[in-house]
């Protein structure tokens, strides 16, 4: 899908609207523009700057939110369950162990259909303790019923916030959304960003008017327990809401592009993929490096392209089938690994292609684990291995990218 903006702004015009800020600031500013009623968060590296900026907005009177300095991530998400049920627009952000500590509440928030929005500053899960970026944390939460959007750069991580609220709060969806951005790489980078304004976001995002809230005038019961005769149907309704979200995510992305002139793809986006023989599928901040690398390889005559996963949950099965139908071979680069199997995205993608006539070879590369840098040389290795898999057959379905065999 091409950019849907009414008028594509020239680079110069866009630069005039940009400011060099830290990624966390851009995200906090986007949150501010959505005017959440209640914010609950607990500090964890590398998410801290987001909540520090938000705290400062509250302290300066720029943001009228209740900011709860809670005792844990578990309490943060729990408090938002209460606040959301009381009718508040809610925000949190976390990372890694913090997300793991929220695990139980994640399922609760989605099951209670509470449209909470949370930024996950992606970071590895311990042990060993590691504060650096990978995506094991949010990928581990992929089955929690939350919608998961992954950002390629700071602009997208910030712009995804109002989009996330618009998706989450749709009465047909009512599902919480995680906006995932690579920790440090995006949270701590300074780069030019078009900062959102309250007025612009108010035009984009309607006010939150939930139909049912905790209200003594209309005393509903939230969080009943459901026995086997109802549970399946309640889960099915969640599953249906995710199916509807497939369309909603696209629609909201288009609406955003129309108003703001910025397009990141709907469920997926592509780069040089139309005639690509070798397609890399991935998500998150590594996309930028891959794009530069693709430009290099294209100039050398290699037909390499990229499919970016923007929505990992709901999983864009149809969109991927369509985008990959003419590819000859696919490489998945992902910052997670299922110990005991393979990368989660690799499994998901292979499953999506299994019942199709184009069951092309797919191989996977867990990469960037625990903050291991992903370089252009790494991407070239992926492409070499992938071409070899096409030409001479799959040697191994999965390879840890940049594994230091000298240490083993």
């Amino acid at each position: 899908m091409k950019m849907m903006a009414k008028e594509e702004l020239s680079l110069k015009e866009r630069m005039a609207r940009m400011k060099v800020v830290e990624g966390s600031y851009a995200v906090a500013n986007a949150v501010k523009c959505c005017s959440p009623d209640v914010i609950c968060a607990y500090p964890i590296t590398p998410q801290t700057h987001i909540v520090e900026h938000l705290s400062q907005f509250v302290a300066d009177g720029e943001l009228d939110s209740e900011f709860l300095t809670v005792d844990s991530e578990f309490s943060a998400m729990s408090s938002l369950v209460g606040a959301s049920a009381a009718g508040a627009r809610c925000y949190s952000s976390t990372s890694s162990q913090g997300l793991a500590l929220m695990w139980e509440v994640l399922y609760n928030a989605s099951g209670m259909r509470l449209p909470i929005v949370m930024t996950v500053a992606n970071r590895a899960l311990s042990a060993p303790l590691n504060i650096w970026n990978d995506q094991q944390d949010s990928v581990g939460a992929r089955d929690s019923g939350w919608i998961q959007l992954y950002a390629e750069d700071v602009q997208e991580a910030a712009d995804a916030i109002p989009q996330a609220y618009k998706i989450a709060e749709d009465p047909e969806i009512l599902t919480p959304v995680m906006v995932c951005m690579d920790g440090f790489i995006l949270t701590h980078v300074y780069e030019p960003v078009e900062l959102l304004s309250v007025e612009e976001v108010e035009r984009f995002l309607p006010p939150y008017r939930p139909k049912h809230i905790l209200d003594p005038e209309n005393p509903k019961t939230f969080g009943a327990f459901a026995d086997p005769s109802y549970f399946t149907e309640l889960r099915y309704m969640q599953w249906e809401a995710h199916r509807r979200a497939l369309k909603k995510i696209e629609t909201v992305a288009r609406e955003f592009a129309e108003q703001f002139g910025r397009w990141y793809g709907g469920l997926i986006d592509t780069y040089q993929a139309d005639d690509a023989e070798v397609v890399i599928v991935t998500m998150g901040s590594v996309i930028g490096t891959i794009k530069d690398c693709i430009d290099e390889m294209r100039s050398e005559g290699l037909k390499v392209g990229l499919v970016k996963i923007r929505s990992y949950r709901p999983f864009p099965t149809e969109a991927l089938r369509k985008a990959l139908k003419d590819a000859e071979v696919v490489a998945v680069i992902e910052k997670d690994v299922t110990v005991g199997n393979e990368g989660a995205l690799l499994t998901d993608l292979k499953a999506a292609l299994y019942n199709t006539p184009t069951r092309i070879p797919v191989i996977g590369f867990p990469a960037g684990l625990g903050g291991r840098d992903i370089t252009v040389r790494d991407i070239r290795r992926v492409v070499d291995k992938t071409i070899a898999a096409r030409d001479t057959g799959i040697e191994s379905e999965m390879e840890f990218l940049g594994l230091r065999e000298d240490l083993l």
Partner: protein
Amino acid sequence: MKITVAALTEPGSTVVNKTGGWRTFVPVVNHKRCIKCSLCEIYCPEGCIHQIDGLFVPDLEYCKGCGVCAHECPRKAIEMVLEEK
């Protein structure tokens, strides 16, 4: 009945569940002895003892026959008797 989003439920809707069937013993009130202290009404776990025309009457649709009312009655005005079914 269609299920509701997020399993929301209506206030007080357990009234469809008639728990009177749980009962073995049934409270029988001797209204002449009753001093209207209302302790039976306060202590009844089912909240099913109501004052009707000045008399304290257990709602047998819900009464589980626990006997708390009889035990707490200061005038022993309530007796638990084996219910004939």
